[in-house]
């Protein structure tokens, strides 16, 4: 084997190894930096939820413009978890067959559910012991959920995101 071929192959192999590494990084790039982006997103809705007046003004705009694509847990033990919303309802509770299984001492086995209707998501309490709150207000019947307004269940807090 000529020396040149071996030298070229030697460096070629190392380059190929790094190409593999960067290809893997390229494939997972989107959620590699997803955490960094969500950091900014978490901060934004705080101001929305700060005053209820603003929060009630928001949904009118939201309904026309952007629809909710994600459900994000912003507080509690599952904080950081995000669920991509489809057309199926999302059940929340301690029961293992819930979509979002929360281990929260103040949550019931089947605590609440989120149901989509005509592009708008509704939260509904399923007879939980400690209640479900949309921002500060207790949820009594199916209530439309605007983007970025926290749904509180026990110590867990959830938000819809575009």
């Amino acid at each position: 084997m000529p020396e040149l071929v071996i030298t070229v192959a030697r460096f070629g192999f190392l380059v190929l190894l790094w190409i593999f590494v960067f290809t893997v990084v390229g494939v997972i790039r989107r959620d590699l930096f997803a955490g960094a982006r969500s950091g900014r997103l978490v901060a934004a809705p705080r101001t929305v939820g700060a005053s209820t007046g603003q929060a009630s003004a928001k949904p009118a705009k939201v309904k026309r413009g952007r629809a909710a694509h994600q459900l994000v847990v912003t507080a509690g033990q599952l904080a950081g978890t995000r669920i991509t919303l489809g057309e199926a309802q999302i059940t929340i509770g301690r029961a293992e067959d819930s979509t979002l299984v929360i281990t929260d001492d103040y949550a019931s086995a089947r605590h609440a559910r989120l149901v989509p209707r005509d592009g708008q998501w509704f939260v509904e309490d399923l007879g939980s012991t400690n209640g479900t709150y949309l921002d500060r207000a207790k949820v009594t019947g199916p209530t439309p959920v605007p983007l970025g307004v926290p749904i509180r269940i026990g110590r867990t807090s959830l938000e819809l995101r575009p």
Partner: protein
Amino acid sequence: MTAAATPASSPATTGERPGVRMARSRRNAELSLLLLAMALVAAYGAMVEANVLDTVTPGFWVPAATLTAVFLGMHLVIRFLAPFADPALLPAVALLNGLGVGFLRRLDLANAAPEERADLAIFAGIGGRQLAWTLISVMLAAGLLALMRDHRSISRYAYTLGLAGIVLVMLPAVLPASISEINGAKLWVRIGSFSIQPGEFAKLALLVFFAYYLVRKREVLSLASHRFLGIDFPRGRDLGPVLVVWVISLLVLVFEKDLGTSLLYFGMFVATVYIATERVSWLLIGLVLFFGGAYLAYVLGEAVGGPFANFYLRAQIWLDPFAQPYDDGYQLVQGLLALGSGGLFGAGPGGGQPLLLPEVRNDFIFAGIGEEIGLFGLSALLVIYLLIVERGLRAALAVRDSFGKLLAGGLAFTLALQVFVIVGGISKLIPLTGQTTPFLSAGGSSLMANWLLIAVLLRVSDAGRRPVDGAGGKVTRPSGPPEQLHGAPTEVIKP
């Protein structure tokens, strides 16, 4: 509101199809990455033959092709059983596994008599055995994926697995040294020419138990505390479990004479507690306890000897390996020399002298490979480990139940810690201990256990990335009239 909203409302929402963007399974990306990885393994094999035999034999591609077939099989299994699993895990692990097999085959070539080298059978030697182990391990991983359709189902066996884990950890310690001792570390169970390392499986079993236990106890561990120096410290009585694990890991240190294993178990537990409670104080307590224990063992080894003597000796070698370069420090010195002679770009696959390294197929495989691919290649391998761990942690973030989070986070951390312990050992960052390098080292136990670990991570990442109304319909049952949830009793089901 009638809850029939689910199926009926679908036409209205099709315009914005939210799931479509995120719900890509990325299986084709996995396939192309896998083929790239296998091309690398084949190139490695060809270069080894070019360097060792001075010619590339027509059959150089056979081991790589066998591996490709095995991993393609695994890819198909994932495609059908865990379609939303992480696309980066399998190719990254396959590359490490393939390079491990390639390097071990390279050792066989160097060991064989010159006239036999050209026609070395594919399943011959340690390289061939590793290839066979890979086959078995991948089949086991596929079997685990098939059996465990939901990662939450293994929490049912948590106590059984915990008990099995403790038995497996303790087994080599209580067996006589003639069965369990290799190179001064009692980590093995030898039956004839066959030896297994039960600790490799124990770490998986124990982790399932830790995750299950902590999901139930995390409230107590994270909430009941008193503040001291700005850090929340847990109450004394809640320290019980962490102290028990600490004592067990110290017993492992003393009776199995292995710092790495004990560090692995203890670190695994502390990291899982930290993930469960988000309390920095647990990390501090863990570090203080471990270093205190290790220092105590060192002092006792100097003063008393006996069961602590081995640890004292290892620490001495670590502090000054060149004190006895041909005697106690031989392994470490040779490893450092190999890494040093590899330099930045290495001698090229097949161009080094790995046979000068003692234990090059197990503990020192990283030094052996490092001599041939240099710092440039080694750092690529370390980045691949890093990516595997990152994918594991990402799976932990994405999954929607606490047990899965703790399980995946703990498993990913364990893998990282094991790589740290062995690579830190051979590069003289920490005292050297006989850990296997995941996926690279020769040995069936390690390979099987690590592939099972990857199967669990794949399963958890599948659960985490699967869209809610996803294909499997595992998470919700969208169609049909919803169950009468109002009538359901508020039962407490702990996961």
